[in-house]
């Protein structure tokens, strides 16, 4: 021990050779807790930093609204506020992105869609809209987004069509073909995937296949201009007489723009659509709050903005009625019917205005027109039943009530009306049954209940 100790002491006093010192492991071991602590702190800090960055909300993009149209600026500012109020709402980010996209603030919209997708990775719309934004400028990046979107919803045909076109634009013809085939699988009722596949056959100069595909497309959409034109051209290039019929000739000469695949997601962010949606929202909100003046102004502005829409006119008429200006409502609805003669809602609304001005026959005709245009229009059938009853046409009334119920079995008023009419005809058991249905469909409403009690009482009195 003694011999050993001085030696050890000596060794410890003098610096040992670096690689041979037996005391080094022991010394390191003694410092290990501190090192471990430091490492742990470092790792924690790194994790915290990464997680903070992963979950961090990007700076909300704010384009320069100052020079923008006031309606656009107002709508955009409102949706911006929604994002600021709810920074973790994917929907708020997405909707803000939509309005930015609609007004061509594309790079700002892209930030929003990316954040919306991060907050709700299961929603297909956000990567899809981001892809659409990118595919005219950055098709490679667009493809990444389309691929994310297709994993979330593989049954949305427009997505496969757009993806196919992007691939075609990158000269990746085989992949484009596969994408168009997916579009066809997703929606067999559209000619567009078949046209796209025919186009690929044309690129490969396989005019026989192109012709066959276009024949198929023609069977799906016999009046589609693109189908007719491309089929004619394909037949010509195949070397056969294209045999132009009237439809083909008209298609070739018409000059009308080709139809495109209907795309609900994309069309919802159409510039006018977004602005109109916002304007409608504002007007509806004013009407709900009882601010009829603001609501009327909103609907008038919307009619100017979207003259092709019937709804703002109907809502405006409703506001006029609520504010006691029946003649104005009547004029508005008459104009709506003239402008939209094929719109059942317009005829239906007009009928009430006519009824309000004691024009019962005209009201009934409008209701008949409404149900002719829309045979499953339950409210219109109900209204027609009322008209028929007023005219003493009980059979028609009963039939209309039944059609109203057939169109919407939950329409309590129709059950009640049917019941009361049957009661008048002395069909008391059927009447009780119908009124009972009305009571069950509107449990809190005392009126049907009162009629039910009376009907039951009448039934009891009349029992043999």
């Amino acid at each position: 021990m003694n011999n050993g100790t001085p030696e050890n002491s000596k060794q410890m006093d003098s610096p040992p050779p670096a690689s041979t010192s037996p005391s080094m492991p022991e010394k390191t071991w003694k410092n290990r807790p501190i090192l471990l602590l430091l490492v742990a702190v470092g790792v924690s800090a790194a994790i915290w930093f990464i997680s903070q960055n992963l979950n961090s909300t990007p700076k909300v993009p704010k384009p320069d609204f100052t020079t923008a149209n006031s309606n656009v600026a107002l709508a955009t500012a409102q949706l911006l506020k929604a994002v600021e109020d709810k920074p973790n709402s994917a929907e708020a980010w997405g909707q803000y992105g939509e309005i930015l996209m609609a007004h061509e603030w594309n790079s700002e919209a892209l930030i929003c869609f990316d954040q919306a997708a991060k907050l709700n990775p299961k929603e297909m719309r956000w990567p899809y809209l981001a892809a659409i934004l990118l595919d005219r400028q950055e098709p490679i990046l667009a493809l990444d987004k389309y691929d994310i979107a297709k994993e979330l919803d593989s049954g949305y045909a427009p997505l496969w069509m757009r993806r196919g076109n992007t691939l075609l634009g990158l000269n990746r013809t085989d992949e484009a073909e596969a994408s168009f085939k997916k579009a066809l699988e997703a929606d067999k009722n559209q000619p567009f995937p078949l046209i796209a596949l025919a186009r690929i056959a044309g690129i490969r100069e396989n005019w026989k296949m192109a012709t066959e595909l276009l024949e198929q497309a023609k069977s799906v959409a016999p009046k589609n201009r693109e189908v007719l034109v491309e089929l004619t051209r394909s037949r010509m290039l195949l070397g056969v007489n294209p045999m132009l019929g009237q439809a083909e000739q008209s298609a070739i000469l018409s000059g009308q723009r080709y139809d495109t695949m209907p795309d609900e997601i994309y069309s919802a962010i159409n510039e006018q659509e977004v602005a109109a949606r916002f304007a409608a929202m504002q007007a509806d909100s004013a009407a709900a709050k009882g601010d009829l003046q603001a609501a009327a102004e909103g609907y008038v502005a919307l009619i100017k903005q979207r003259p092709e829409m019937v709804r703002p006119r109907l809502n405006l008429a409703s506001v006029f009625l609520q504010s006691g200006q029946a003649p104005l409502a009547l004029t508005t609805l008459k104009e709506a019917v003239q402008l939209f003669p094929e719109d059942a809602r317009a005829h239906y609304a007009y009928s009430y205005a006519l009824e309000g001005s004691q024009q019962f026959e005209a009201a009934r005709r409008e209701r008949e027109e409404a149900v002719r245009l829309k045979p499953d229009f339950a409210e219109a059938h109900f209204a027609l039943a009322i008209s028929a009853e007023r005219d003493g046409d009980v059979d028609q009334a009963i039939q209309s009530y039944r059609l109203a119920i057939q169109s919407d079995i939950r329409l309590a008023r129709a059950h009640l009306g049917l019941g009361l009419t049957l009661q008048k005809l002395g069909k008391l058991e059927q009447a009780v049954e119908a009124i009972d249905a009305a009571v069950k469909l509107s449990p809190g409403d005392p009126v049907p209940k009162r009629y039910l009690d009376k009907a039951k009482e009448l039934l009891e009195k009349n029992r043999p």
Partner: protein
Amino acid sequence: MQWAAIHAHVNLDLLQSLVASQRISPLSSQMHLLRYLIPFLVLAGCASKLPPGNATKSTGTDSYQQPCLVDITKLSSLDFVHDPGDLDGFSMPQIMGSGAAFFDIDGDQDLDLLLIGGKQLGANGSGGDRLYRQEAGGKFADITQWAGIATGGYGMGVAVGDIDNDGDLDFFLTRYGADRLFQNRGDGRFDDITEKAGITNLQWGTAASFFDFDRDGWLDLFIANYVDFYPGSVCEDGSGRRDFCGPKSLLGTVGRLYRNLGKPATQTVHSQFEDITVPSGIARRVGKGLGVLCKDFNGDGLMDIFVANDGEENFLWVQYENQMFSNEAILRGVALNRFGEAQANMGVVSEDFNDDGLSDLFVTHLAGEYNTLFQASQVGQFSDRTVAAGLSLSSLPFTGFGVAAADFDHDGDVDLAIANGGVKRGRPAEKKDVNAFWSDYAQHNEFYLNDGKGFESQRRLGGSDFTEHTEVSRSLIHGDIDNDGDVDFLVTNCAGPARLYRNDFPKLGNWLSISAIDPLLKRSAIGAEIQIQVGERVITRDLNPSSGYLGCNDTRVHVGLGKAARYDAIRVYWPNGGTEIEEFPGGDSNQTITVKRGSGRILAGDTR
């Protein structure tokens, strides 16, 4: 209403009959057969042509060691600056720019320059057009006043041609306002003969082209008209800011075709024109024309008319024996892009880009769309092959207007120069050569070299003044401004200087410059097709100065020959009189040649 009524009476029978009789089929025309068989018959025993891509080149560099397209505007004393007038009204013509023309006004064998100006819309007095004569040392002198070309209206485009076959070049100006026709006195001074000549186009004329559609030896005139725009129209961009109107919100118009009746016996001073828009069938379709190119597209020996429409289907007016025109663009594959979309078609050129002996079409477009290469698969049949040619992605961010197709490096393949500039507010570029107002519209120009297999953008390589400038460019015209055997060019800019670029590109081969003259007519044979036989290879070019956007090019046909030190023959398909193909003997490369009708060997056709 008037045009709608006309549209409703489209002659369906004509279309039916032409399709039924297979006239659309490319192999129906004897002329066509001759055209494509003669090169092989002449060189009996020749093997088939080399496949596309045989004339390859490789610069072997990732950047150019010296400037390739050098801005020599100041060096040339060219001081033209486009004046769009007061911009408060965001008037649409102001964003459409204006054209230019290279032509020899005085017969001194060098190119002079006509630049079209804008000036105040609706203002009286002279417009902003300027005529420059090239003088010693390559300097340009403004001779506008002396030349007598001052005129009103807001200037757009120009077409050049000898309308009276007197040996000097006349020109036609399109305007937002009444178009004007100027006749050359012979010394570079001009007289406005618009009314005397019977031309009245009050619509918004854009591109125009002289061509002899009826083969009577007198140059006829086609004018593309754009939209029905009124200065009071107010338009906004997507965010509601005031911006220039686009074509979608405006009605289209009808292009006009004027037949040159020549000089009547009682009138020897100038030609008379007759408006045959309606009887020719051109009035059947309303369009939004910005680009025009006249040539025989279907190989039947009759001149046809391609019209590039902004935002709508292009027209290809194919001419028939009865001098009626039928729009066959959609059936011939040049109306829409490969996705079936109508694009914003602006400038147009036609050349054989893939060296297969068939002329292709290239059309410039809006940002977000790609410039389209309609490649001929058969005579008169085209397919969008832009992507395969490598021209799509690089063009997506830019709005292309002017375009020149020429072999800038003499490797034997046709290259492309494109003038870009936005029409809608975009993000301001980092480097700009324009003021704050125009900064949202300024873009880089683009230059592509064709290596025989496809195109490669040269912009990334830098070293070129042409691609470095960031302006709102519009027309791009080309010509050998210094007579050194290569193709130089000039770009016009909205509210900016016209810039002249000298071609200092590293040359990879030899060249020929060919003038084709009809001595009886005392003028260039506009509309002639010229074939140059080089060994087994046949290079096909058109003599057609009116192409691109609003401009007019040098009438000499420039050809890059690659490594070939000699050419074996030149064949000319004369565009007027009876069908005639004439061959001229071969010679050394690197020279300017003038071939005169009647001095060669007749290969086929009816001589006059």
